């Protein structure tokens, strides 16, 4: 039983990171009906930018670890938002009127381009975050050891997800994003500037991906230029599991995927944990083709 709860917390941590990355996929898909394959690489870039800022500016020395990390996360969010907007301008906007397959190919190209850029700048070797930034202490809750860093990751992701949810539901821009997701043409007729909505989507999604990247760096310590692919695949899966295009769905899907993986590893086999996770995905899609919370019938891609 103790193992069960320990695995549950393990799954929650990794799941909340999947969820943060999944939000980027699902938001872009919701509005553009495009799988932004470069999103995983934006996540990687977030991790690398975080490392550069952390080591070059000595943020945690000057501001203390807590404030330092908050400033770091905000800076990375800002930079990634700019990068996301640039990516849209360069790779997707020129293809907005062309067939959707062209945009998908452009997304794949952008992914390879970004991944290789990271490799050329930082090298193929894996890089390490300074080990002493987050204290390696663990809380003892009824005999379960839960590292403080993991609790922080969980809390930060939940705050960000809640903030995003309120933003989408309660603000004018959020309403415009939802309207454009339902019907771009009708939204345009209602006076919504759809290009602007898309710009917002490309500001928010990559910013959240960037935060996830920094958290992975801080939590696990090691980052590599290819890691966006592994996380991207899982996050994309999470987005589909929850119902792609649906924001709460991405959150539920991410956390569910993390927990399925951890429990699959515990009770079946750790070598098979990915197979188990994808097996569950297939089962859920057979029963509910639109994903857990998806309402609309998924478009082809």
């Amino acid at each position, binding site marked *: 039983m103790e*193992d069960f709860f*320990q*695995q549950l917390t*393990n*799954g929650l*941590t*990794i799941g909340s990171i999947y969820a943060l990355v999944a939000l980027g996929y699902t938001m872009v898909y919701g509005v553009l009906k495009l799988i932004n394959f470069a999103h995983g690489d934006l996540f990687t870039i977030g991790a690398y930018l975080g490392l550069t800022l952390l080591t070059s500016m000595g943020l945690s020395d000057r501001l203390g670890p807590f404030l330092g990390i908050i400033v770091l996360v905000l800076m990375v969010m800002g930079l990634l938002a700019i990068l996301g907007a640039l990516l849209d301008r360069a790779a997707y906007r020129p293809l907005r009127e062309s067939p959707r397959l062209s945009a998908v190919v452009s997304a794949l190209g952008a992914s390879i381009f970004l991944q290789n850029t990271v490799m050329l700048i930082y*090298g*193929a*070797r*894996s890089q*390490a975050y300074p*080990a*002493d930034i987050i204290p*390696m202490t*663990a809380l003892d809750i009824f005999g379960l*050891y839960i*590292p403080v*860093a*993991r609790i922080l990751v969980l809390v930060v992701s939940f705050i960000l997800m809640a903030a995003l949810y309120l933003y989408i539901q309660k603000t004018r821009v959020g309403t415009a994003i939802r309207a454009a997701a339902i019907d771009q043409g009708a939204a345009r007729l209602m006076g919504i500037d759809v290009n602007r909505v898309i710009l917002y989507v490309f500001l928010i999604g990559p910013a959240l991906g960037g935060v996830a990247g920094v958290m*992975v760096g801080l*939590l*696990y*310590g*090691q980052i*590599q230029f*290819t*890691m966006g692919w*592994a*996380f991207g695949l899982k996050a994309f899966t999470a987005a589909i599991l929850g119902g792609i295009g649906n924001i709460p769905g991405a959150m539920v899907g991410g956390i569910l995927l993390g927990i399925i*993986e*951890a429990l699959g*590893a*515990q009770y079946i*086999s*750790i*070598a098979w*944990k*990915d197979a188990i996770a994808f097996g569950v995905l297939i089962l859920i899609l057979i029963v509910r083709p639109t994903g857990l919370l998806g309402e609309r019938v998924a478009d082809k891609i």
Partner: protein
Amino acid sequence: MKKFLFLAMALCFLWSTAEAADTIKIGLMAPLTGSYASEGKEMKQVVELLAADLNAKGGLLGKKVELITDDDGSDAKTAALAAQRLTTKGVMAVIGTYGSSVTEASQGILNEAKIIQIANGSTAIRLSEKGLKYFYRSCPRDDEQGKVAVAAIEKMKVKKVAILHDNSTYAKGLADEVKPQLEKKGMKIVFFDALTKGERDYSASLTKMKGAGPDLVFFTGYYEEAGLLLKQKKEMKWTVPFLGGDATYNVDLLKIAGKDAVAGFAFVMPSLPQYLPSKQAKDFLAAFKKKYGTEPTSPYSVLAGDGFRVITAAIAKTKTTDPDKLADYLHTKFKDKDGLTGTISFNAKGDRVGDVYRYYKFDSMGNIVLQK
């Protein structure tokens, strides 16, 4: 105009053949890109240094040695292409490469072209069980590594062992090699499974292993996962000792896991030159530091250097570059020569004989200490 072109072409042709006769070409196949790019870069540095040194002393048989480097991309498909390119460039021997599955892709191509290959970091047993005449390796095999690992585990006096691999040719091979040997010695294998390479979060795997209650975990995979495992094990306050295979060591291990998590981590590895008392190892280390500013970090780059030294010593001794004569010499007469990593001999299969593996442990300051 046509005549002129023809003449120019003829000249080019003459010039290139003339050059070919002037030098002895030795190929180096190394992972200059891909996951093992840092090791590959160091292999190139080591062999280039040794080649420059040899040429400064007058070369071989009155000719200069020309090094032709090609990139295997840390990947089998690229390695096969690299081997094919090298066969067209007139090399008489190839040093390399790292990774058993990568080397395996190049073996047949080089052997068919009668080019002597000295692999430097491919320890899978089956590579030398195919009866290839021109294949050698300067690194030992996994049965040798397994023996040293089993001896180290025996000394730790543990009863229950968990074995973790990552399903790669090398890691699974080593795990399969060690498991029956430990069982024969009366130890119980309480956990035997594989993790997925390239992930960040191994807490689920660690929690499951912890539930099996081992006295020791033997991880046969690579350093990136080893670093993450050690760090996450420390985070969950699990104090079980870890033993790693020879791929778990890299300078980055300390960076990934941090000093505290790495303390007490033991691993088996071919001897690093800084732990060798011989004069040539020390001279080589000094020369390397003088030229590149740092000491070599990977044992496999030094083993690539040993491969180069073996083939050039064999050419100097036999006064020929004929592959059959050289192969014959390496198989039968090349015994107990001084290498950078200790004495080198080859058996009939082309495998290096001798104890090359050592057993090391990290102390609490992050230093590597040789264990007796």
